[in-house]
């Protein structure tokens, strides 16, 4: 039995946000010829000189995104992260190591890869979604999130 959280369900803004992310992916692809997989952009910034400046600018844009949105709309944007410090460190390490080994994250595999009908990315997305759902379940179950 699935219980929907109607108070926090935001289908319209989430759909609009998703479409805007799609615009960003296509714009980046048609101007630079590259796929906007964020883990790839971060790892290339750290490890390679090729496209370094372009990658850094993309990441700066990403940080400016929420600030520009708040500045122009004057809306409050919620950022609620209640995890403990050790969990944040372990979670960050896992996300860095995992996306580097799998060569893609929610954007690289989940959006760019699926949009190219890459079977590799479809498999990756099913695996990381399933593992994330199981992890949330176990943490809720043990009450340690």
């Amino acid at each position: 039995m699935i219980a929907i959280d109607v108070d926090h369900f935001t289908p319209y803004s989430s759909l609009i946000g998703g479409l805007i992310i799609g615009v960003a992916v296509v714009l980046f692809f048609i101007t630079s010829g590259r796929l906007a997989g964020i883990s790839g952009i971060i790892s290339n910034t750290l490890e390679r000189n090729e496209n370094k400046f372009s990658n850094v600018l993309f990441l700066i844009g990403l940080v400016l995104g929420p600030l520009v949105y708040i500045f122009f709309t004057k809306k409050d944007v919620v950022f609620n992260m209640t995890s403990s410090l050790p969990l944040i460190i372990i979670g960050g390490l896992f996300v860095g190591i995992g996306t580097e080994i799998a060569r893609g994250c929610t954007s690289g595999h989940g959006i760019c890869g699926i949009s190219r009908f890459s079977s590799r990315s479809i498999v990756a997305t099913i695996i990381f979604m399933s593992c994330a759902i199981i992890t949330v379940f176990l943490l809720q179950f043990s009450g340690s999130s």
Partner: protein
Amino acid sequence: MYNNIFSLISGLIFGIGLTIAGMTNPAKVIAFLNITGIWDPSLIFVMGGAIVFTAPCFYLLKDKRKPFFTSSFQIPDIKDIDRKLILGSSLFGIGWGMIGLCPGPAICSIAFIALQPLSIVFVVAMIGGFYFTKFLKI
């Protein structure tokens, strides 16, 4: 030159999209992943919206020879569904489920450092993970 300007603009639009979508809030991501609790399905619409726009555009661009401001398209040529893909995606999923941040929203979270200083800890740990992987023999 134009390539760099459009990188900044693309990143900015991406960040605005994540913000409007609600992906920048770890609690909302956790509520989406918590399907056995009181479920917030919103984030299906984020990935769905992005793919609905991107997939037809990629299809229309498939015969284009070169991008506007660089010499060629760079598309990954690996096709293998191997141990690395499975192991990496599993680890990533566990980390994502623990905190509710994936790499894009993690970078955005630097914008919220005044609200939650710990966001930078996640980013530093994630970058540590990228470096650490270079020394792993997988």
